[in-house]
């Protein structure tokens, strides 16, 4: 009746084997690096030193600043993306269903590498040659410093949202369309109006995908790197250092490989914890 344990093994063997081969060695080496004093010069002979890299990371205020930045950035961006995409997916469904190619129009921004998007915004937002400041000067007579310290966060988050809402839209739209029609029919038969249908039938049915979408978008926005790096670097005084930028800088610019890896291991553990909590949370949801 059930999948046999032999089958379980063979069906999960390829991915497990692949991960072991591709990441086993790198992970092992990284774990060694994280407890070593290692620079580019002694990559092959790191000097073991215990957990100093971890202590140093935990004591580094800029690490916590970077973590806070990434959390704030990830949460803001992913929540806005989620609500915007959910609205568009449901509201535009009749239109998109009739003209599927419209979806491709909405998806276009995802196809450009974030680094190149960042590059283009360097031009678009430039006070003298950018199209947005140009029209602001024309119409309002002034234009804000989009990338100045006080506005940078808002600008960067907006750029992230505009590029990646289509991603959430694609998933949510697919999910919305796959709601079995008999569910809707049954609800209508019971006299549900559109709002009730949405709140009591459609959204609950989509909830797992909504959570998944939120999770994916949060993770992606949390580890933001390219567009920020291209636009403002790590920001004046380091004010827009995301965790990825922190780790990249520690790794290459600081040449402090052990600490960069330790910072990543800490992140990995934190993320594991988060996933475990989410898992428990979603199981409780399933049982209620």
């Amino acid at each position, binding site marked *: 009746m059930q999948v046999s344990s032999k089958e379980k093994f063979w069906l999960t063997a390829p991915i497990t084997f692949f991960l072991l081969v591709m990441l086993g060695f790198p992970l092992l080496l990284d774990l060694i690096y994280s407890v070593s004093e290692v620079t580019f010069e002694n990559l092959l002979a790191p000097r073991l030193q215990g957990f100093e890299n971890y202590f140093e990371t935990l004591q580094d205020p800029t690490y916590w600043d970077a973590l806070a930045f990434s959390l704030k950035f990830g949460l803001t961006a992913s929540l806005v993306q989620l609500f915007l995409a959910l609205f568009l997916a449901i509201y535009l469904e009749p239109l998109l269903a009739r003209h599927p190619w419209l979806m491709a129009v909405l998806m276009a921004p995802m196809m450009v590498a974030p680094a190149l998007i960042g590059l283009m915004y360097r031009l678009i937002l*430039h006070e003298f040659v950018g199209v947005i400041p140009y029209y602001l000067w024309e119409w309002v007579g002034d234009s804000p410093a989009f*990338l100045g310290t006080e506005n940078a966060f808002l600008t960067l988050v907006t750029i992230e949202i505009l590029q990646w809402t289509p991603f959430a839209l694609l998933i949510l739209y697919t999910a919305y369309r796959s709601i079995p029609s008999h569910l809707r029919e049954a609800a209508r038969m019971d006299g549900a109006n559109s709002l009730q249908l949405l709140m009591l039938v459609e959204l609950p049915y989509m909830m797992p995908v909504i959570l998944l979408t939120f999770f994916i978008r949060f993770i992606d926005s949390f580890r933001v790197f390219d567009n920020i790096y291209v636009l403002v670097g790590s920001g004046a005084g380091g004010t827009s250092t995301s965790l990825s930028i922190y780790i990249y800088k520690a790794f290459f610019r600081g040449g402090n490989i052990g600490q960069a890896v330790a910072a990543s291991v800490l992140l990995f553990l934190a993320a594991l914890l988060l996933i475990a909590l989410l898992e428990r949370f979603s199981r409780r949801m399933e049982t209620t």
Partner: protein
Amino acid sequence: MKKMSTKLGLVLLVSLFAVKSLWAQVTVLGWPGGPEETALRKAVEVYNAGPGKSNGSVNLIFFNRDGFWDKLQADLAAGTTEFDINLTATYAVGRYAPYMQPLSLPSAAMDVFGDKVLKTMQFEGEQYGVPTDLSLHFMYYRNDLIDKLLSDAGWKKIYGEISQKYLGKTLAPKNPDTWNWEDYAATALFFTKSVNSASPTRYGTVLQMKNLLFNMMIWHSTARSHGGEWLDANGNVMVDSWAVRQGLQLYKTLYDAGASPKDSTSYEYAEANAAFGSGQAATMLQWNAAFGSLNNPEENPAVAGKIGTVAPPAGPAGRVTHIHGLGLGLNKNSKNKDASIKFLNWLSGAAAMETYALGGGSPAMAKSITDKISGDRPDLIKLGDFAGSYGFVMNGGTSASALQIYTLQAEQFTGYWSGTKSLDEALQATSKGMADLLK
């Protein structure tokens, strides 16, 4: 159709498992994109048609510019043999020295480049590269505007009032070639709309204040001309000094007064050029490389033909410009060292460098050589002159951690300029960080 797809499949297969072909060639990793690439291609073409025939020919590869140094670092640290000769730079020569082999260039190289320029490729007394391109900074200004400022009585009067109000003394306009930093500041303020509503330009100057190590290099001239230095003779960090404070405060004063565009804290090379090129800024402290494009009427119609360039303004300790060089050196793991050395030796000769310069590169060479090609490259004379008279490299500027030090300063100093850190905090953190890096 079927044939087509079989063909595609084959191409796919071959490209998947393509083994790099093993030519007995010297592979050179160059700096991509700009005139450095064009110049290197030109030089290599000449070499391959001549000495390369017997010495072993040279072929070129390039990496992406973004992340170039990081990629190079990874390659060298892993002992790559993908290239025999690679790019190096003054601020990175100490960092890559462990993976590179010192050169003993022919004595003629001394006559071509001179000691000061060769030094930009030296670390702990060894020569690690042939200095192919030199970069330094100019004070760019608008001829037309400065001419009017120097002659118009009404403007002179306002200039005096503005300098009194912002700098505490009444100054008279001066020729940019005789500026000190106060003259520069007064001029920048004068040409700023928010300070002087009669200003024909929106901003008086363009400062590059993005958190980026290269921006620190431009700024360094302000500190150095006040006598600033990274390390004293004993190797102790002396960055928390009056001179460095003067330089940092100058930027801060101008930025806070609105003399540089609002978004200056996100400006680097390209943004600054766009601002100056739009005709809405009267002066700019910028790399020498920008002149060609700014002065080209096709690219920058608003300012081409109206640009003057001089060395950066003087401070109490004289007039200086930060210099750094790009160069080519030998990968320690190269399997083709003999042929590579032959190419590098050839490249360091007068004839090769002449070709390189005519191809668009910017080598700093002895006057006798630059004079010969002054018809095609008049700018190289200025480059050589400025490097010789004003060029400086900070004490520690070629050390293994130079790149990290610039990065650290960029983080701290931009914090001060943008107002998230006090001057004391920024300097203390810089001193401490530098001491750690140089330990």
